[in-house]
């Protein structure tokens, strides 16, 4: 093995240039590193800086915009106070706190769909675990290219299989998510994984190393050569003579997951927390040991001395930069007091989790890493952790006006009952509108026994406390078509939809997380989309009074010059004081009144109807009225609380037509599921009259701020009063019952036919 590049070597050759460009660092960034260190970096240091200053770790292009989430944060009592950067912890009452976060694993999932998606689940679960919470549920927001494209047949089954394999083996229920198809995601699928954790207030853990003399413990899987992108480049660029580097470069850059080890890590960590032997903890995700040591030391304003010789390796040929950058999965790093070390190691042994002391906290303020007795890293951790900050140029593209001018009003519309019926079935059977059971049946929805609602209901609802029935609701939404037409209002529409979905399940919305998926930040048009999207989300959260608690940015989702549609995925968390009052999304008993809440206008820009029936995308997205959404949510949660509602379902893409179809097929109760003959139908009449919209508009418009409410018989007057009190327009449409989705005077679709059309699409495509 080559002799390592030491700090002494670097001091002796302070001006020797390093291959920074191959690691993605610009000349200016490299110069800044040299200034920080007063000499050239060693290869290990360069490895650390390259990953810490990558877009993924440093948010260097997005931070100037993301500040708005703090600057415009609404006043709230929902966040646990005094917790600084870890403010993703939401107080849900009764001494419970919930933490939730969504993160992208887009690029790995395209390269190696199964492992990419699997390790995406693993990563977000460790994030939540490192907060001190027990992970209790996962969700996935997925976007793929056209459903019938050959590459989608490669990517989708792999992604779903990977999520199924990892999440199921981990014992976490998968309680919701999204599945959308659009040509813009060809070559750039989006795999956004969300995890939700629950803890007692007192159990919050902080990721900062403090207390000189405390031990740094690495535990979990041994470190191998997986997920090393940059380090291989470094190895071949600086020592590129041996065969080893070339051989290593051929290894997969996507990590391989072991959910069994992760399950053990979860139980082990929770027992470590309960024993009170953890001072600080951090998961090892992107950039592995490099990131964990740097961030732990930087956050604790301490120093840290680490010996890489102590790191258990799967491959003894690894070099120091490779050990630092390895992204081997299922690893955690903790700081523990020396007096607690024995107990720490003993608990790890009980769970068969290997644990090794690799260093200790020092008062030096430096991160010092040694290898075979030589110092290979000596840096100020804060300097590496903070990273550069860019204000990228942004420019609204000229094409935006053309796009917005392409009004869907000119598209031929269905007029007769038969035409309306045909368009409804076309949407219900389209890949994006179809039943998702082919995917969701591969996920364990019920493990842990607290799942009150899962897919296909509007939100996932979990019981948190078995005695008091306290629970939480969570939903994610995003609509790339709306965001392409107008990233500001498109993002607010995603926020409003997730907010509405939580309320339609009976939950009171409390907090927001997000995963912002965009093209290249170096493209001014993409940067403009991003800035508009963030501004829209920050303004929207302020208007709705719910804070952003955390999030993730994924740039470079593009192939060549072709970026994906801007796709912010927004997650909203809500609380239910009593989960027994949750609202399902489907029709159950017969004879229950069906009421449409909210105003319907002729809004078809970016609609599913225009997309499916005409392949059209243009015009303006539906108008946003967040105050109307607040009023709607108040009616839904109050109606649920007062027992006036049997069910509720949010209206979004596909409008009233798709919402009704879903209500007929979803059912209200697992104990009395829709049978083989189908679900419960309904008989409805679309309002007529001078002020009313035409049937096409009623059925296919995607006006925001709307939901279907299914009333308990006899509750009509009280519910009408509730709507009037909150100023929410309510239109009685008819009642549940029968074996068809019947719109008086226009069409009737037997539920069996609807079911066949809705349910056959994905199995026919994916087997």
């Amino acid at each position, binding site marked *: 093995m080559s002799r390592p590049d030491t700090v002494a070597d670097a001091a002796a050759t302070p001006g020797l240039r390093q291959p920074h460009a191959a690691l993605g660092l610009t000349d200016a960034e490299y110069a800044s590193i040299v200034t920080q260190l007063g000499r050239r970096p060693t290869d290990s240091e360069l490895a650390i800086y390259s990953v810490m200053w990558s877009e993924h770790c440093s948010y260097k292009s997005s931070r100037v915009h993301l500040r708005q989430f703090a600057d415009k944060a609404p006043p709230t009592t929902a966040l646990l106070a005094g917790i600084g950067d870890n403010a993703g912890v939401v107080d849900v009452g009764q001494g419970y706190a919930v933490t939730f976060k969504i993160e992208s694993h887009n690029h790995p999932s395209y390269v190696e769909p199964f492992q990419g998606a699997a390790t995406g689940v693993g990563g977000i679960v460790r994030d939540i675990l490192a907060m001190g919470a027990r992970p209790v549920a996962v969700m996935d927001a997925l976007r793929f290219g056209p459903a019938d494209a050959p590459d989608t047949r490669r990517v989708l089954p792999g992604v779903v*299989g990977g999520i*199924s*394999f990892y999440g*199921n*083996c*981990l*014992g976490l229920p998968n309680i919701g998510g999204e599945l959308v198809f659009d040509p813009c995601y060809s070559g750039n699928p989006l795999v956004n994984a969300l995890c939700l954790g629950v803890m007692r207030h007192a159990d919050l853990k902080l990721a900062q190393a403090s207390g000189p003399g405390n031990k740094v413990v690495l535990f979990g899987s041994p470190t191998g050569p997986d997920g090393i992108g940059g380090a291989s480049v470094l190895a071949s660029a600086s020592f590129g003579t041996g065969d080893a580097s070339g051989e290593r470069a051929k290894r997969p850059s996507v990590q391989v997951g*072991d*959910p*069994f*080890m992760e*399950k*053990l890590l979860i139980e082990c960590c929770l027992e470590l927390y309960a024993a009170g032997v953890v001072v600080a903890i951090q998961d090892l995700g992107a950039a592995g040991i490099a990131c964990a040591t740097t961030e732990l030391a930087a956050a604790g304003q301490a120093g840290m001395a680490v010996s890489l010789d102590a790191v258990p390796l799967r491959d003894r040929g690894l070099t120091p930069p490779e050990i630092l950058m390895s992204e081997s999965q299922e690893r955690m790093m903790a700081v523990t007091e020396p007096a607690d070390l024995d107990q720490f190691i003993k608990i790890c042994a009980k*769970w*068969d989790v290997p644990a090794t002391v690799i260093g200790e906290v020092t008062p030096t303020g430096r991160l010092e890493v040694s290898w075979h007795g030589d110092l290979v890293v000596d840096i100020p951790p804060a300097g590496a952790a903070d990273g550069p900050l860019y204000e990228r140029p942004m420019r609204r593209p000229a094409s935006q006006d053309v796009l917005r001018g392409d009004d869907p009003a000119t598209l031929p519309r269905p007029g007769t009952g038969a035409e309306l019926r045909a368009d409804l079935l076309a949407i219900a059977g389209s890949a994006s509108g179809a039943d998702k059971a082919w995917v*969701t*049946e*591969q*996920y*364990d*929805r*019920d*493990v*842990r*026994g*607290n*799942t*009150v609602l899962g897919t296909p209901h509007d939100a996932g609802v979990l*019981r948190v406390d*078995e005695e008091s029935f306290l629970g939480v609701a969570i939903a994610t939404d995003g609509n790339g078509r709306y965001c392409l037409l107008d990233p500001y209002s498109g993002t607010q529409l995603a926020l409003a939809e997730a907010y509405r979905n939580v309320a339609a399940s009976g939950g009171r919305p409390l907090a927001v997380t997000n995963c912002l998926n965009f093209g290249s930040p170096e493209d001014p048009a993409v940067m403009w989309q991003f800035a508009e999207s963030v501004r829209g989300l920050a303004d929207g959260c302020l208007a709705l009074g719910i804070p952003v608690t955390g999030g993730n940015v994924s740039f470079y989702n593009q192939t060549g010059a072709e970026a994906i549609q801007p796709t912010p995925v927004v997650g909203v968390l809500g609380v239910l004081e009593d*989960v*027994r009052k949750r609202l399902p999304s489907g029709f159950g008993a017969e004879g229950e009144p069906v009421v449409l809440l909210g105003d319907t206008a002729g809004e078809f820009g970016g609609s599913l109807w225009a997309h499916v029936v005409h392949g059209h995308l243009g015009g303006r997205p539906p108008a946003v009225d967040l105050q109307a959404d607040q009023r709607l949510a108040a009616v839904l949660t109050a109606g649920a609380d007062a027992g006036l509602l049997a069910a509720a379902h949010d209206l979004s893409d596909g409008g009233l037509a798709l919402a009704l179809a879903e209500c007929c097929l979803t059912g209200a*109760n*697992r*104990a009395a*599921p829709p049978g*083989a003959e189908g679900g419960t139908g309904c008989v409805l009449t679309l309002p007529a009259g001078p002020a009313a919209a035409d049937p096409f508009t009623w059925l296919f418009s995607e006006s925001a701020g709307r939901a279907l409410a299914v009333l308990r018989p006899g509750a009509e007057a009280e519910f009408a009063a509730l709507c009037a009190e909150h100023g929410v327009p309510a239109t009685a449409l008819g009642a549940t019952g029968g074996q068809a989705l019947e719109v008086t005077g226009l069409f009737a679709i037997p539920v069996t036919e609807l079911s066949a059309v809705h349910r056959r699409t994905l199995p026919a495509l994916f*087997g």
Partner: protein
Amino acid sequence: MLSRTPLTLKVGIVTFPGSLDDADASRAVARAGGTPIPLWHGDRDLRGVDAVILPGGFSYGDYLRCGAIARFAPVMAELIPAANAGLPVLGICNGFQVLCEAHLLPGALTRNTGLHFVNRDVRIRIENNRTGWTSGYAPGEVITVVLKSGVGAYAADQQTLADLDTSGLVVARYADGSPNGSAGDIAGIAGAAGNVVGLMPHPEHAIDPLTGPGTGGLKFFSSILTPAAAA
């Protein structure tokens, strides 16, 4: 045994590394009125329990074969002879796989025909209510429980399948056809002595309409609490 009142019956629930539905099995035992006792895979100790449940999950990550490693856990060294001596044992999902690997039940569980994990509410018909775990059911009673497994198709040679049929040892069959390719639509079987039962779908997830498809699974856990069942 006969002198005990039902409420004092202790039901052990084994946690292997990778067990996932152990808390759910405990909840079901408690809901039925029994006392759940946690049993640790590494301890050769059944802690004086009156019956044992091997819960669902992915013990040892399903490495090698589902249940193949768990079957060698220290606790199994106590459980296997106890089961052979008449201790009531219920294996659910992964627990069923462990029982087959331990040769306490004949046959094996194989990959679902679709090669996908399947999570679905399924109706099963109780074919044999003479076991300690099913005595509370009427013969032919149909209940809805949760199937969630990727390796859930029961398989055995023709002679074994015929023997299970003629001896009445099939405990439950899928009422609407097999969702996973299980031979003879078999959802669960009993050993020759009737005290050991393996079931692929999860009755412990059907004990409360709030969190599952009704309460149809609860009688698996209440049946065993009757003195006659555990005797």
